[in-house]
Every structure is written in C-alpha cells, then in structure tokens.
C-alpha cells in the first residue's frame, strides 16, 4: 500500500518534470520562432511587389518616386545608405579601435573602471535623442562650416552614426584584445620589446580578426539605424556622390513613407520589400561576424 502511493507520487513527479521541461523548451526556441516569423512576414508582405513590379527595374532603377509615378528604383536608397555608412565607418573605426586599445591595453586599472561605464552610457542614448542633438548642433555647424544652403547632409548623418556605432565596436574590440593570451605579451616583453611595441606588433595583430568582427557588427548597427538618419540626412532620394548633399537611406525611407501608404497597396508592399533586403543584409553581416567572434572565444 505504502509502496503503491509512493510510486504514484513519483509518477506524478516525473510527469510534472516532463511538462516543465517541455514548457521550458518551447520558450528556449523562441528566438528561432521570432527570426522565422520576421522573415516569413517580410516575404509574405513583399510578394505583391515582387510579383507585379519588374525585379530588374527595381534593382537597377535610378528613381524612387512612389507617389508621383509609382517608380521604385532601389539605387538611390542603396547609394544613400552606403554613403552614410561608409562615412560613419571611416570616422568611427580610428576612434573606436584607439579607445579599445587604450582601455584594453594601456589604461591603468582605475581609469579603465571609469571609462567603461561612460562608453556604456553612449550605448544607452536613444537614437532619436542623438538625432535631435545632431539636428541642433551638427546640422547648423556643417551648414556654416561648408557654407551650404542646408545642413541636412550625408556627412551630418555619418558623424552621428559614427558615435552610435562606437560602443559596439569598442566593447567587442576590447573583448578581442583581452582574449589575447598573456604568454604572448610576456614573450614579447621578455625579448626586450616595450609595452607599445608589444601592443601594436603582437596584441593588435592577434586580436585583428576580433576587431574586424567588431567593425562589421558596428556596420550592421549603422546600416540598420533609422531615426537619426531620418532626422538629419535630409531625406532626398536622389543619387548624389557628395557627402555635402541630402540623401535618403533605406531605413529612413521605410520610416518616412509607411504612414502615407495604403495597406496592401504596391507602395506598402515595396516598403516591405526593401525591409526584406535590409533584413537579409544585416543577417549576413551578423552571421559572418559571429563566426569571427566565436573564433576569438576559442583562442
């Protein structure tokens, strides 16, 4: 009798444990579900566009004027995004890698402990606030400095985006620098190199694949950034090859135009289509850089 009760209880226990583990498992795979759903809905909503608008004239079209004459040329948006991103990376990389080397290798410990939270604060500033500050400070500065009629330019966007990508690039580069084994440093120092020679001849080259991954993740952040570019790059979907002219990025196009579209219409579907391209590009960037990051972890 006693025995029977016990086994019943333990059976219930195993059943309960089974239910719990199933429940936990369902939560565990949530990120796969989310990623799949995002992809599915981007594809689902852009089918209409891809099936009714010729793909070739989308991908090579040089005019984006969805409301006037339903022209959906991707080139101006792509050029806009690349231009802003390229400028931002050029500005961000020297600063970020410099800061990462300083914090990771050269700074005395107390200085490091002060610097790290300050860099983290930069990561918490909302993009709309940074865009707003750019609008009030960088935009008038660019306008006056270069004597332009309007300060809303690709360069203004690049400057703000550079700062927005810095926390990402700095923290991952620093991880890569910290992951360099101490025996390499010691060997170099023992051979008579000083600290700086060790840093730039041994530590930085060893960490270079991690630093590259950091830069790529920063690039992913830059390409996906929306609010700041929407506010300060001028929103003009024309192909220009100058940093001192207004441009329009992929992200800004989606945010600016979605409100004026008809649900289910061609324009609506077109915005999902460029969203899909954006998703695929950032996916590729993250996927590739993640492999690099894993490599430094296994160093």
């Amino acid at each position, binding site marked *: 009798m006693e025995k029977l009760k016990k086994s019943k209880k333990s059976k219930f226990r195993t059943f309960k444990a089974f239910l719990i583990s199933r429940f936990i498992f369902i939560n*565990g795979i949530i990120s796969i579900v989310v990623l799949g759903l995002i992809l599915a*809905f981007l594809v689902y909503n852009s089918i209409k566009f891809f099936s009714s608008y010729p793909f070739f004239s989308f991908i090579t079209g040089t005019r984006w004027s969805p409301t006037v004459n339903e022209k959906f040329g991707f080139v101006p948006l792509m050029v806009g995004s690349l231009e802003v991103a390229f400028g931002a990376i050029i500005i961000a990389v020297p600063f970020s890698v410099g800061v990462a080397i300083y*914090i990771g290798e050269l700074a005395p410990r107390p200085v490091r402990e002060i610097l790290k939270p300050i860099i983290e604060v930069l990561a*918490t500033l909302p993009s709309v606030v940074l865009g707003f*500050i750019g609008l009030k400070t960088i935009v008038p500065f660019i306008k006056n400095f270069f004597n332009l009629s309007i300060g809303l330019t690709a360069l203004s966007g690049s400057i703000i985006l550079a700062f927005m990508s810095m926390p990402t690039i700095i923290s991952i580069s620093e991880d890569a620098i910290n992951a360099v084994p101490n025996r390499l440093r010691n060997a170099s120092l023992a051979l008579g190199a000083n*600290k700086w020679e060790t840093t730039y001849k041994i530590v930085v080259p060893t960490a270079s694949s991690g630093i590259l991954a950091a830069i790529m993740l920063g690039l992913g952040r830059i390409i996906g950034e929306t609010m700041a570019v929407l506010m300060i790059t001028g929103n003009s979907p024309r192909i220009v090859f100058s940093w001192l002219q207004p441009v329009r990025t992929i992200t800004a196009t989606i945010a600016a135009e979605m409100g004026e579209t008809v649900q289910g219409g061609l324009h609506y579907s077109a915005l*999902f289509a460029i969203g899909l391209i954006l998703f695929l590009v950032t996916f590729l960037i993250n996927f590739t850089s993640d492999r690099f990051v894993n490599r430094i972890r296994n160093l």
Partner: protein
Amino acid sequence: MKRKNLIQKFWNYFLLFVTFIVVVFVLGIIIYVIIKGWPALSWEFITQKPAAGMREGGIFPAILGTLYLIIGTIIFSLPIGIFAAIYLNEYASKNRLTRIIRLSIVNVSGVPSVVFGLFGLGFFVIFLNFGKSILAGSLTLALLILPVIITATEEALKTVPNSYRQASLALGATKWQTITKITLPQALPGIITGSVIGIGRAAGETAPIIFTVAAFSQPNLPNSIFSQVMALPYHLFVLATQLPNAPEDMQWGTALVLLIMVLFFATIGTVVRTRSRLRRVNL
C-alpha cells in the same frame, strides 16, 4: 632605446587624447541636454496635456504612454526571456539545435529596429488584428529586447557555482525546485541588470513604435490595451521635425525627460550589478 620609449610615450598620450575626445562627447551630450532642457521642466510640463496644437501645455500623455509601453514590454519579454535562458543554461545539451538557437539570438539582436516595426505592423497590427495599439507596440518592443534579456540572464545563471545545484539535488530537490529555489535567486542581480538595460532600450526606441502604437497627437488618456498612445521618443521626433514652429524649449524639455527616463534605468542596472559584484568579492 630612448627613441623607442619616446614613441611609446607619444602613442600613450595620443590614444589617451582620442579616448578623451569620445568621453567629452558623451558627457557633453548629456550636460548639453540638461542645460537646454532644464528651463522647460516644470510641474505643469510633466503633468499637463498638450495644448494649442502641442505648442503649449505639457507632455503628460507621452510620458504615460511610454510607461504603459514599458509595463507591457516587461510583461511579455521578461518571463519568456528568463525561461529561454533557463533552457539554454540548465536544460539544453551541446547539440546542433542549441547552436542554431544561439545563432538566432545573435541575429535577432542584429535585426534593425525599423524591421521590427515592419514586422509588428504586418503581424500584430494587421494579421492578428490588434490594430495600432498598446498591445501591438508592447509585443513588438518585447521581441526587440528579448535577446538582451536572454543573454544577460544566461550570463547570470552561468555565474552560479555548480556545487550549489549539486548540493540542492543531493538533498532530494527536483531539478525544477533547484532552479526556482537556488539558481534563480542566486542569479537575480544579473537578471535584474540585464532586464533593466533592455527596458531602458525599449523606452527610447522610436522606429518600432511608429507603425504599431504611436499617435501623432492623442491628448486623451488610453482606456484599454487596444488604445493608441503618444510616446516620448515619437513625440520628440514629431516636435523636432514634423511640427512647424514647435517651441525650442518644449523640444529640449521632451528630450531631457526621455534622457532622464533612459538613464534612470541604466543607473539602476549599473548599481545592482556593482553591488552584487562587491558582495561576491566579500563572500
């Protein structure tokens, strides 16, 4: 020999200078917003509804809207995120599925926020027919910060020594009892830190809420989870770029209120983390 050390000195100071510029920029932004926004802050500004086409009055509906969104985001993201981390750290074995899950987390965290907005519009607003609502907005933001919460919780669970788990199991506790009574309480500071950082991020996001919840102007307070609300980040965007002749001090005031809110969460996160780190050292 001397030249070598001179070069070292030069680079030391040069990189210090570069770092200094970045630090000045970060602190400069915050101080600048405080100086410019402070005069606009008043009791009326944070408790009154907008008036005269949002050019006068306060921003109370936007503050309240953002608070509602924060609460909704916590409700949806926290349990799922924590359970997902429990799965990864306590249940999952090192197999292919686990690798795919980890890769997905990295990729979800890399999805641009405007794409989350598109997804929220397509899925929550239209497909599930929630409409532009607090519900749709909170769900979108919840998915956005899920990777932050999962990663932070998992890191926190990792710091709990295995001997604690073994001791609990040896005393006859089940795996679930061990997790709820031993592992989770031990990991709590880390979980709080991660969640608070994620929530701070959700509070400041604009692109995901434009199509899913944010109203250009909605002075009436929401009466259900299917209401549209104003939200601080979107309101700042509207004042700065969409509304001609919006008063400067209202723009800066809104920026300051948003900044205070976001930094408040960031500070809580940092304080909790620092305290738990100190306690661990003293242990």
